[in-house]
């Protein structure tokens, strides 16, 4: 087995063509934002100030955390089967985090000011301040760990990996707290968010890990070696467990939102169950994101290499919607009686074309960087004992 560049394949040209088109769409939208300003190209409003760019940011950093946690199982926690994905997992964790930051920068009005005033005028009671600080630290540790993995320095990789693992948990639970600490938003408020963010990160990480293992072989027209095939099956079992726990969490997010009809929390929960977000919730989150993948993964007959990949793909799509629904549902209940309401007495938001284009662009950039990195780095080496 070798990682030397393989001859160009028609599939590869198509792949780069698709990514190029996605990045172009994103670039056009970014240019529009820079020329016309947020207010003219985004659909976020005074009442719903956080839209799809924030949820996409959350999606990316959840992916990053998840990849880091799952990849650490090998290098940090000594599960040998997981060592083969250490380099790839950490690399993609870096790229998803950076892409996430990029998406967030498009929603912020002053990313540069942020750098300056977060340092000279920090507010330690702000979860967003901590988010910046902790994710910054996490990024540094990820880069260290990836470098040590590439250099084959197991000891330093272990130390930075251990620190990175805790940074990932701290940073990511704090991201949950960005929502969970808002007393005004009953749907988000409470300690559920930080815990739920960690758990859903594991699901994201597991799904993406299965995808990168599968496609790295498929795209190069290589057979999966027995070691990788075995890894996929183990990942599949683990992922079934993660999904099972996630479903348990989702049920316990819903029940308190309905029981006793707690004001505002109830309306937001109903938005998912029977309101404007119902299709997203039932079809994408529940069916595509959790139920079908879970059924594929618990059944030994369908828990094949392909099955694990397929479940991972569905879960990834489901999780994207899960983030969107979470961010939007929390803002649907008006804070003032006279706000412009749509059906169900709730506010409404639908992303603009430019917002969607930026999301597509961000996904394309991330995949493009990853594809390039696969060509540049030897992500296979170091683990072939």
């Amino acid at each position, binding site marked *: 087995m070798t990682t030397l560049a393989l001859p160009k394949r028609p599939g590869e040209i198509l792949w780069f063509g698709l990514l190029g088109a996605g990045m172009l769409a994103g670039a056009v939208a970014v240019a529009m934002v820079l020329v016309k*300003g*947020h*207010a003219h190209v985004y659909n976020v*409003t*005074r*009442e719903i*100030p*956080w839209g799809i760019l924030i949820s996409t940011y959350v999606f990316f950093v959840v992916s990053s955390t998840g990849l880091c946690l799952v990849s650490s199982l090998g290098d940090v926690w000594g599960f040998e089967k997981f060592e083969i994905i250490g380099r790839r997992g950490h690399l993609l964790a870096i790229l998803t985090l950076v892409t996430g930051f990029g998406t967030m920068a498009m929603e*912020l*009005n*002053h*990313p540069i*000011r*942020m750098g300056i*005033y*977060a340092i000279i*005028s*920090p*507010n330690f*009671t*702000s*979860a*967003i*301040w901590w988010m*910046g600080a902790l994710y910054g630290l996490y990024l540094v540790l990820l880069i260290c760990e990836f470098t040590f993995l590439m250099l084959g320095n197991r000891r330093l990789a272990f130390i930075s990996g251990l620190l990175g693992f805790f940074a990932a948990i701290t940073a990511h639970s704090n991201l949950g707290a*960005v929502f969970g*600490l*808002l*007393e*005004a*938003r009953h749907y988000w408020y409470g300690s559920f968010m930080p815990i739920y963010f960690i758990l859903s990160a594991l699901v994201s990480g597991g799904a993406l890990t299965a995808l990168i293992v599968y496609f790295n072989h498929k795209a190069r027209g290589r057979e999966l070696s027995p070691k990788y095939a075995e890894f996929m099956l183990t990942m599949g079992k683990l992922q079934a467990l993660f999904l099972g726990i996630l479903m348990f969490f989702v049920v316990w997010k819903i029940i308190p939102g309905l029981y006793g009809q707690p004001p505002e929390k109830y309306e937001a929960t109903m938005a998912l169950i029977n309101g404007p977000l119902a299709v997203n919730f039932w079809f994408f989150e529940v069916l595509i994101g959790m139920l079908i993948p879970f059924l594929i993964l618990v059944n030994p007959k369908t828990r094949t290499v392909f099955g694990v990949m397929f479940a991972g793909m569905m879960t990834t799509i489901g999780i994207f919607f899960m983030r969107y629904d979470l961010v939007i549902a*929390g*803002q649907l209940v*008006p*804070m*003032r*009686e*006279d*706000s*412009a309401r749509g059906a169900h007495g709730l506010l409404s938001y639908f992303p603009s074309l430019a917002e969607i284009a930026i999301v597509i662009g961000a996904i394309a950039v991330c995949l493009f960087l990853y594809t390039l990195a696969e060509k540049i780095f030897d992500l296979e080496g170091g683990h072939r004992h």
Partner: protein
Amino acid sequence: MKNKRFAIVLDTRRCIDCKACTVACKAENNVPLGRDNHRNWVTEEPLRGSYPNLGQSFTPGQCMQCGNTPCERVCPTRATGVNQDGIVTVEEKKCIGCKYCMTACPYNARYYNEEIEAVDKCTFCAHRVYSGRLPACVETCPTKVRVFGDLNDPQSEVSKLLAKNPHRVLKPEMGTKPYLFYLI
């Protein structure tokens, strides 16, 4: 000199929903046009009774200059602050436009002002108040719904009104301790 604690006391029974306050505020504070852009507003409560005996009340609102400020707490760069007299402020050049304060405010009192490139909201017209004038909305109101003053001064009109009349604040359950008081 002792600090002041500015407040507004409103007698909503006098409100006729003319929205002069909103217009005056827009003009005074260069609030850009557009549905999202306003520092104060008048909420039209649902109709009461049945035809022909109908009634309706109106509740003017704006930033409540809370005593316990979620918006200040969440602002990552301390762009949002509170001055010595209890006025909640936004320092334009520090605002990064994360809109966290907008999600944190239970009154939806804030909006993003594209012209100044920062989050904006009612400041009790601090620029007028500190030169001895009244906030624009207070000065304009044709039926004198609003009374502005210093609650730390027991002789001020606001202190007297609150001492004499029962009153309420909006969303007391949020624990934000608003300084807009509504007479009942």
